[in-house]
């Protein structure tokens, strides 16, 4: 096996990196691939709760690099989906507990045994981001259609390019087509044109994301909502399938009248 190592990053905080990492990891595993999701947000771990695996953690990433346990011991196996594992971050340590060299060594050790390694990056452009990105061959940059988020994404793309990442693609998250229609939100073409990288997918604003995070069950586990559909499409595009881009409607999941009502809320 020769795993594809993919970092999910953004620059700006809170735009959906952890949500994307969890859902794409689950979706790829459901397609039959073996996946390790790594939480590289050391000190502020969250991927465990979003995936619903927080109660089963024994060891973490820092334990592995410090040699306190073997790599396989730290991997938390998801019992709901075959071949899905989480390597949790340490919660009580800081970012400098791990060096870039150690991250490379750790990811290379996973490369032989799995199909995909997804790395959830912390916000920012400092050490934590560098650790998350250093071992990756590919990068998924998450941005919301807002000026500050797109600007930070541009900075991150510049840094990834200068690190020689060969594949950088964009996911636009929290898209609200009703606002775009009213001319009050950047549309997808604006964002992808400005950032000039390949657009991998568009995830709509979707209340189901919050509900699923409350439960610790990523939408990709088998829900059908607009965001769940978007994650599935993104997973297929990562696998090289040619799925036409759609601009999902956040009203899609709602009833007909509710959709009409929110369309005309003036």
């Amino acid at each position: 096996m020769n795993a594809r190592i993919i970092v999910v990053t953004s620059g700006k905080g809170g735009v959906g990196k952890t949500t994307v990492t969890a859902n794409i990891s689950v979706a790829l595993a459901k397609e039959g691939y073996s996946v390790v999701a790594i939480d590289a947000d050391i000190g502020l771990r969250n991927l465990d709760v979003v995936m619903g695996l927080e109660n089963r953690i024994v060891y973490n990433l820092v334990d592995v690099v410090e040699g306190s346990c073997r790599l396989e011991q730290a991997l938390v196996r998801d019992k709901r989906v075959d071949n899905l594992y989480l390597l949790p971050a340490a919660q009580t340590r800081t970012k400098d507990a791990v060096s870039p060299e150690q991250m490379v060594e750790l990811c290379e050790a996973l490369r032989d045994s799995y199909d995909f390694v997804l790395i959830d990056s912390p916000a920012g452009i400092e050490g934590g981001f560098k650790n998350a990105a250093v071992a990756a061959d590919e990068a998924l940059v998450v941005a919301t259609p807002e000026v500050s988020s797109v600007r930070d994404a541009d900075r991150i793309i510049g840094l990834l390019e200068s690190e020689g990442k060969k594949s950088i693609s964009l996911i636009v998250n929290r898209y609200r087509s009703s606002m775009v229609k009213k001319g009050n939100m950047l549309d997808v073409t604006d964002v992808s044109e400005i950032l000039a990288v390949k657009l991998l997918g568009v995830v709509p604003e979707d209340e189901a994301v919050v509900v699923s995070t409350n439960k610790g069950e990523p939408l990709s586990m088998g829900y059908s909502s607009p965001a769940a559909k978007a994650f599935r499409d993104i997973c297929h595009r990562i696998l090289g399938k040619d799925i036409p881009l759609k601009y999902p409607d956040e009203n899609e999941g709602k009833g007909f009248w509710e959709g009409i009502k929110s369309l005309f809320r003036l």
Partner: protein
Amino acid sequence: MGFLSRFFKVGDSKKKAKERLQLVLIHDRADISAGMMEMLRKDIIEVISRYMEIDESQIELELEKENKSVALVANIPIVKVKRNYRNVKTSSNKGE
């Protein structure tokens, strides 16, 4: 305001956002490549010096934004034009 536009109140904050982004990114990206501006400055001095004597300490070279476009603006004071500029070696015959 026309009848239709009053009914379908179309916001223009999207347009504003796009314009502001395009401008701020030109600045951000130029900042990242401060090294590029320095190289460009050296190259410009080298090329122009083949034809005229210039005051290197007074050269101004910067990116300026005007409305929606950006220009490279250079102000290069000339001390004197060389008499034998016809014999200057250009980069194409430098290797001779």
